[in-house]
Structures are given as C-alpha cells and as structure tokens.
C-alpha cells in the first residue's frame, strides 16, 4: 500500500465509512460520520499508521483529506 492508500484506509476505518466512499471530497463536519469523536479516532489511526505524533495545531488543522496530506507532509510522509 502506498501512503495515499494508507491514508484513505485510515479515513474509512476511523469514520466507519463504506469502501466506496469518495474520501477525497470529505470535509470535517460535512457528514454525520465525521464528528469530533470520529476525528479523534482518525488522529489515533494517523499516529499509528504513519508512526508519528501529530501536534495540537495539526490535529485541529486536519479538516479535509487534502489538508491531511498537507499536514502529514510536514512529518516527512511523502505523497507522490
């Protein structure tokens, strides 16, 4: 799995979504599945999957799939 797929899988697992969901289009609070509780589950997934520890500001910043990629890049997770 490349990092993009890993990130996608993390979203699907944390938010409890269908495999077929268009993850790229999601934004925080735009669907009932992505609430504050799911957001913390997502952060836990990202910390585990990419073996990092996200900072406070970055956790708050992850408001979409794209934004998550941007934040992860700061932790030397590369997306091609």
């Amino acid at each position: 799995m490349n990092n993009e797929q890993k990130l996608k899988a993390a979203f699907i697992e944390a938010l409890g979504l269908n495999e077929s969901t268009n993850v790229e289009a999601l934004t925080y609070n735009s669907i009932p599945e992505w609430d504050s509780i799911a957001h913390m589950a997502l952060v836990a997934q990202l910390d585990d999957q990419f073996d990092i520890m996200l900072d406070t500001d970055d956790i708050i910043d992850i408001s979409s799939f794209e934004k998550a990629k941007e934040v992860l890049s700061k932790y030397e997770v590369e997306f091609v």
Partner: protein
Amino acid sequence: MFWQLQHGDTPALIELQSQRTLTYRELSAEVSAFANLLLSHSEQKRFGIIYMRNSISCMIAYLGALQKQDAVLLLDAGLSEPLKQQFVQHYKPDWIFDGEWLDMGQESQTPCHEQLAVLLSTSGSTGNPKLVQLSYQNIQSNASSIARYLNITAAERPITTLSPAYSYGLSVLNSHLLQGATILLTDESVISGAFWKAFKQYEATSFAGVPYMYQMLHRLRFASMELSSLRYFTQAGGRLSQSLTAYFSEFAKTHHIPFVVMYGQTEATARISYVPPDQLEAKQGSIGIAIPDGELAIDPATEELVYRGPNVMLGYAETRADLALGDQQHGMLKTGDLARQDEDGYFWILGRMKRFIKLYGLRMNLDDLERFLEQSLELSVACSGQDEQLLVAFEASHDDAILQTIRQQLKLRYGIHHTSLRIRFMDELPRLSSGKIDYIRLANEVK
C-alpha cells in the same frame, strides 16, 4: 436566586459565534421581556420544552421560564428529530422554544406542581422518556454549593464545553450566573481551532469536562498548550482513568492551578461530591467528600451510597400527570452506586447497581438499547459493557451486512461511534435458568 440577575453592568454572556455581549442589566431586560411574553399567553403555570444550545437566545428562554415560573424540560438541540418528537408526544408541552417561541395552543390540561422548575432527561440520548424533576430550591442550592467549593467569583469567565441540557453543563451556567461571572457561550468542540482561538481571545478562566473530553485533550497534547488565563478546570460525568488523572493533575501541579474531580447525578441536580484539589494526589480514584450543605453515607445493609441534601430532586416523571406530584424524595437519594468510606472520610465507588454505562459522559440505559436493537433487527440481543465501551452481543452467525447496519443505526440514532462499540455474534447468548440473560457470564465470555 440566580435567575434574578442583579449584577449591573458586568458582562453576563458573550456569544462567541456572533461576538454579541450582554451585561447583566441587558440580559435581565431581555429575560423579563420573555417572561412577559409567557405571561401574556397564560397567567397559569405552564409546561414548556426548550431545545438548548449554548446561545444567548436559549439562555433568555431558560431564565425567562424560571422568572415566570413555568416548568421547562431542557433537551439538547442536537437530539435527533424522532427522539424530539417522542418527548413532545409523550409530554404534550404547552409551548416549545427552538430558536423561536411556539405556543402549542392548549391551556395546561394537567397542572404542574408549584415547586417544579426544571426537568432533565436521565437518559435522553436513548429516548427514554423518564425525567428528573427539579425544584427552584434544588437548582438554587446546588448552584450556591458549587460556587462555594469552587470559590467562583465575578471575575470568572468559564467557556462552555458541554450541552446546557445536561446537568453538569447546566450547573456551570447556574453557578456562574449566581456569582455575577461572565460566561463564554459556544457549541464548538475542543478539537476545533475556533474554540481555542476564542479561549485565548476572551481569556477563559475555566472549563468543565467529562472523561471523553479529557481523552481528546490528552491527544491534543494539552500539556503543551499555552493557556495563561486558565485558573482551574473540573471533571465529572464518570470515572477518569488513572493515567489521565495523573496526566492532568501533573499539569495542574506545574501550573499551580486546581484540578477539581467531582461526582454527581442529575437526580441531585448535578453535584454530590468533590475532591479538594490539594487531596487529589493522595486520594486518586476517590469521589471525595460531600459538597457544602450535603451529606453522604453508606447503607450498611446494601453498601449503597446514599446522599442527603437540598439539591435532591423532587422525584422522577414518566408521564405528564407526574408533573403534579411534587416532592417524593424528601431530600434523600439512593445513588445506585456501591461505595466504601476510608478512614479520612473519603468515599470510593466500588460498582454500580443499575444497568447503564456512560459514553461520552452521557448515561446510556442498556435496556433501552437492547429494546431498540431487538425491534429494528428482530434478533435476540444483549447489551453490556463498561464505561466508554458498549458491548452488543447477537444470537446469530456473523454477518457483515448486519454489522454495518448496527454501526450505522447506533451512530445515527444515538451518536455512538463504532470505536466505542464491540459487536459479537454468538450461537447462544448466555442465560440464567430463568431464561434471563446472564450478564456476568456474557462479560466474561467476550473478554
């Protein structure tokens, strides 16, 4: 009484979203206007429902109802529509406030008892219609006890983190209005940037949190945040894990601010006991000592924790007619928790007599959940679990489609996130010889 609002030109409410500020004088005028609106429709005591948010308009409606002495049921505005309708149909309110005031048109069929002030749901998130009835004395005395042991002054600026329809959230509002403090009103969660921006901009001095919120704060690396205005913080709504208690008491110690761990129940308006902050380290895991004016004891026959105080509810309500009952408890509450008292007089919870767990600080009645799942899936089901984790066991073979449906239904209807959920399929649910579910064996078998 805190709803008299006699604190002059001190700011009372600041609504963060609109940046609107109301002084106590201005708030008082708005509240009187709302009380007059209620009076103009009926001089009798009536019964209304308010869908609560942390907003100025909801606060005006709540305080206006108290001033006019209408009884009000406070429900969370975020409750799902079917659950709201269930309450409306069951209790037939004379009026509803949902951002706007709506007269339901009927003269009160059933009178409310004159002492009845506020009704709160015991397990509203599962749609159970059972309510706690609180008197004017209940809400006033609990606000006053809390203000005393937390040393709340007019200089405080708490920021809201809980629903005002939840007893803990409401108690923060009441106790600060009593002392003429300034309340920062927001529905933003602690994981939103807007929350922390406002926290700093308006120099919040305190916040309240349930265990789930402390888990989030921990993940947010709370200890590394710069919060120079913070004067103290409180925790209630279930037991905080040992590691989190240690983390947050360490933070409190290094910053020289109190961290106040508390225990309570909606049946006691909100607060029953607290741990004096200087004892937190020595008494980690204890629920502390009774609040001022309250008294705790253990029933020697059953080990049940019993509380006495002026904040003990009038009683429960299960039907509209019950609102006329008045005081059924006479200041005495059996908590349903088993406890012991140590040699210093501190109380420790040992277990629970009733069938509920706490998720995100909210009480979830396990029998309600069972009934709901049984009806919607037509399968035998048993619900169990511990705080922060619900266990659902089905008498069926594993089925991914059912699994997905359960996750969705529990999420949509009750807001239960699937990571707080364990679902098991079993050939046979463990039963007692009477045919009832054996919950002890169930808990052991899925460990």
